């Protein structure tokens, strides 16, 4: 039996760089595997919800409702597109702006009061400011406005939002938040959560998303005061059930931000990109400084102005899907002004106003003003035009909303399930 050698490493690092490379590779692979699974899980569940949520739009069910077919296709296409934010980050220039611009859920303007407001809806005071998407990934955070342009590029405490190695956020993890940037206190108010830490919430109900938003945002430290690795503060907004007291609180309650109207979210609605009637905006002078649209100089024009998109057959339409037809443009204006299909054009509504037949727009008195501001990505939506029209003629008042809740109250007692306090 030979003597035992007990020599120890001398003046050497214990781990070889090769071993380190091996381990880092394994770490990266495990991370990638986790991300791939995560993605598969999210993708799968969103498709599942889509099918169960909208069985009536299955193409094979009906030959008559032809217009629902493209709608359904578009929707699922949108879903698969939405989910891959990383793919989107490969896009360049104008493409990337267009892509991001389509990712926000855009509330319609409230032109009549929906049923079951107290049972099925949340309400909260919308912060005045720039609506934007905040995306954190790969150790950085970017906010993009509705027109796709970058607002800020900064480190944040959101998962994957800053280059800090802590094991929790992977390089492939990411978050997408629907926010309003409030200039005065330099705060991002999060009004919706679309993806969190690589986990997609597109397919989740607003009820779940708001619950998740409240618990996760706080946990992440994103609500903390700004610091070197966290340039802007994030904050949730107080969300209420839209019963009498909730609506009252949202309307009159004190919040740290300037209000710009009230937002109503249907509790059961998924995060649907583009215009949706399941989220609504409403405002009056008491809760917003910007009830009536202003022009470029910040003044209220004497006549209501609208922005419409020019289609190839000279039709003028809204940004809705499907678009609503407002009229046709004279061929000679097109020629004279060198207009092209897809141009966004500004019009004033003349004294003829808007006329309706059976609740549908029949005629609009449009006066051509010129091309719209280049920063615009979309035409106005139908509900916006109508809301602005009503504000000038017969506005929907807070009392109408309260009355609607009261009358519903008479019929059934409102069950109050979750008290959201932000």
């Amino acid at each position, binding site marked *: 039996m030979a*003597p035992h050698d*007990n020599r120890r490493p001398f003046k050497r690092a214990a781990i070889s760089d090769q071993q380190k490379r091996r381990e880092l590779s394994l770490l990266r692979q495990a991370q*990638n595997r986790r991300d791939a699974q995560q993605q598969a899980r999210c993708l799968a569940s969103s498709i599942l919800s889509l099918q169960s949520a909208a069985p009536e739009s299955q193409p094979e069910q009906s030959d008559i409702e032809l217009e629902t077919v493209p709608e359904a296709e578009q929707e699922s296409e949108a879903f698969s597109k939405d989910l891959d934010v990383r793919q989107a980050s490969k896009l360049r220039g104008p493409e990337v702006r267009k892509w991001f611009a389509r990712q926000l859920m855009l509330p319609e303007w409230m032109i009549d009061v929906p049923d079951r407001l107290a049972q099925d809806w949340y309400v909260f005071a919308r912060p005045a400011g720039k609506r934007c998407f905040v995306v954190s990934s790969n150790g950085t955070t970017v906010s993009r406005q509705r027109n796709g342009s970058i607002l800020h590029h900064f480190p944040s405490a959101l998962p994957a939002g800053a280059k800090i190695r802590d094991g929790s956020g992977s390089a492939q993890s990411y978050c997408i938040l629907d926010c309003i940037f409030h200039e005065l206190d330099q705060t991002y108010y999060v009004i919706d959560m679309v993806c969190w830490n690589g*986990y997609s919430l597109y397919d989740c109900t607003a009820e779940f998303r708001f619950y998740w938003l409240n618990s996760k945002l706080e946990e992440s430290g994103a609500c903390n005061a700004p610091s070197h690795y966290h340039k802007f503060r994030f904050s949730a907004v107080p969300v209420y059930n839209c019963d009498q007291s909730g609506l009252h609180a949202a309307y009159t309650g004190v919040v740290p931000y300037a209000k710009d109207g009230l937002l109503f979210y249907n509790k059961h609605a998924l995060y649907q990109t583009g215009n949706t009637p399941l989220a609504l905006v409403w405002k009056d002078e008491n809760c917003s400084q910007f009830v009536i649209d202003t022009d470029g100089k910040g003044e209220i024009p004497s006549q209501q102005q609208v922005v419409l998109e020019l289609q190839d057959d000279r039709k003028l339409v809204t940004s809705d899907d499907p678009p609503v037809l407002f009229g046709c443009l004279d061929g000679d204006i097109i020629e004279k002004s060198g207009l092209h299909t897809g141009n966004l054009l500004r019009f004033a509504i003349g004294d003829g106003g808007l006329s309706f037949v059976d609740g549908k727009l029949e005629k609009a008195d449009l006066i051509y003003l010129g091309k719209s501001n280049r920063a615009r990505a979309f035409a106005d939506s139908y509900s916006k035009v109508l809301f602005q029209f009503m504000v000038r003629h017969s506005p929907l008042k807070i009392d109408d909303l309260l009355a609607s809740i009261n009358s519903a109250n008479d019929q059934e007692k409102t069950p109050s399930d979750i008290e959201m306090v932000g």
Partner: protein
Amino acid sequence: MAMEVTQVLLNAQSIDGAVRKNAEDSLKQFQEQNLPVFLVSLSGELANEEKPVETRKLAGLVLKNALDAKEQHRKFELVQRWLSLDGNAKSQIKACLLKTLTSPVSDARSTASQVIAKVAGIELPHKQWPELIGSLLSNVHQLPAQAKQATLETLGYLCEEVSPDVIDQDQVNKILTAVVQGMSSSEGNTDVRLAATRALYNALGFAQANFSNDMERDYIMRVVCEATLSPEVRIRQAAFECLVSISSTYYEKLAPYIQDIFNITAKAVREDEEPVALQAIEFWSSICDEEIDILEEYGGNFTGDSDIPCFYFIKQALPALVPMLLETLLKQEEDQDQDEGAWNIAMAGGTCLGLVARTVGDDIVPLVVPFIEENISKQDWRQREAATYAFGSILEGPSPEKLIPLVNVALTFMLSALTKDPNSHVKDTTAWTLGRIFEFLRGSVVDSPIISQANCQQIITVLLQSMKDTPNVAEKACGALYFLAQGYEEMGPSSPLTPFFQEIVQSLLTVTHREDAGESRLRTAAYETLNEVVRCSTDETAPLVLQLVPVIMMELHNTLEGQKLSSDEREKQSELQGLLCGCLQVIIQKLGASEPTKYVFMQYADQIMGLFLRVFACRSATVHEEAMLAIGALAYATGADFAKYMPEFYRYLEMGLQNFEEYQVCAVTVGVVGDISRALEEKIVPYCDGIMTQLLKNLSSNQLHRSVKPPIFSCFGDIALAVGEYFEKYLMWAMSALQSAAELSTHIAGDDELVEYTNSLRNGILEAYSGIFQGFKNSPKTQLLIPYAPHILQFLDGIYMEKDMDDVVMKTAIGVLGDLADTLGSHAGSMIQQSVSSKDFLNECLSSEDLMIKESAEWAKLAISRAISV
């Protein structure tokens, strides 16, 4: 026939290659034709006193090799072969072996000892050869002394070969009695006493019960301590080896003896011959290891519970121990830094001093500082070096608050010594010490950083200057730079090293081209440092990292320009290629992690891949692990476009998967298959047949190192997720492999290592299930998975009940439950509701403190509630 064996064995040792080859062939043939007769004649040869000693020895060795092998699968085969061998033959062989123990020829006895231990290693666990230990022990009381010596040696080998639970306590007691008596001072024969002392070293693992008995333990300890005072140096050395082993095996029993042991070791360190002194120092290093572990465990849980309490032996011995170790530092050998294999008392003492610092922390500082101050400026280089080494040794352990004032004073001195000291040994240790300063006192752990704007320039200048010094000093300077760079990892968008980045990279590349870069592993150190500098670089220097790509590519290209190489040169070339591929891997991973740099980097992808393929091509038998790792990183960065490389790359991928011998290569390749699956998604389909066949083959092989199996299962998941329902082709095979592995991994009992392995196996299996479920999701073929669901749920129940899964497994397991519900929907609903523990498991995970587990559980809850409600 016996004659024949002798001649053949003699021929097998001939200097004539042809004769030797011929003899080896005949032995092989003989063995294949009639194994029992072959083995019997070998044992007969060994036992025959009339035979020449060389053939007796060789016969024993051939016999031993017929019983044991290094490779696990080969070993297993040999064990089975011996167990099924004819009983008569075995008896004859054993009789010959035992007889040989009494031979007057020492080599024959010693060989027989080893062979007996091998046979015992096979038979005792099967309750065979019950009379062996009895007959060995009866030998001990026999004369002549040489038989006694051989018997004790046999007992030592036997204890090394079999595990303690195979031998009952009664026999253990007898063995220990014989061994300890043999090593006591009353034993007059030196060889017997030495054999006994060495046997005790192996038998210590059997002495659990005896060490719990105060009287027996006192006796053993007394005899061991006495043996450290033997006039025979080999006995003293062996006795100290026993003390070292006792220090780790029976740490908690040492309190009554520690004072005596200190006196014995101190005397040995100061006065005894080096081999003995080294073991004496090792005793204290080993005590440090124990206490560091225990204190670490204390730190990890606030209740202070640990299986073993800390006796603070080091803290108590500190005032005497530290001066003793400091003395050893002055006993350096000339040029020890140039000699890779050097190990002397100064090195052992310095290493121990470092461990002591880690054990006691701040307390060591006042004991060492006077020594440093006294010696650091002395004329004699030994004193300067010892002082520097002492300083470097205590940098890990004490708190930054305690060290920073010292370091702030010392830094300027060190930087000056590194350039100006006339002695290379001092410079070597100085550079090493600077590295330790950067490693343990980096900006993230201290309030006032050691390195400021003011001295950064000087530090870098000195380090880059030292890279031109002798290879050993330059290597240490690279090491210091490595830790300097590491200190700025993830520290923010801007690094103080940015202004020097170009210069640092240039200097490191220059080092790699030094004529003498092969010495003191200088070239390796330079590339490792370059890698770390790249890893820790910030966005500011990304353009410079990009510029490095063509440079390293050119270096790799140059190694491929074919000239005929000797095998020695080829080995060096392969090593260099490994370093360059490793460097490229780091760069790819760095640049691939952010979109803008990845975009620019991709212009090189084709060329880089071309180079990697050529690296593979110039090694005919096996693929290069480093190139494989780099390709994984490249696939990840490239995404689906990687498909264009597959036609050429595939054969090397397959070669890597087939490499059982270098299992690391196989494991790395399995990981790369995962990378490629994620990158290619369904485009990997054309290669799936080949890959899946090979992976299934690997799983069923007992030649493949077990650590590769869990990643293979995970890889199934990666492939399934990538190809979706196309996985149907492999489903049956994969599921059956998963199922049998799952069964194996549910009920386990064993040591920590086995539990850890089992958990990694479970994780692999579960990741496979997840990938398969998610891959089949939304395909019309989901129903194919339904038959497997009950077993999977049972598996989940099983591991939940075992209560020994780690957090990673828990997270993966609850995810699988969700995946199963998500994919099978209503089919799974009732099964999950009926399963024994799904609900408890889910609730446990939902209330877990681990965020990842909680998140997976929340997802699973969502999926299950949907499955149940449909």
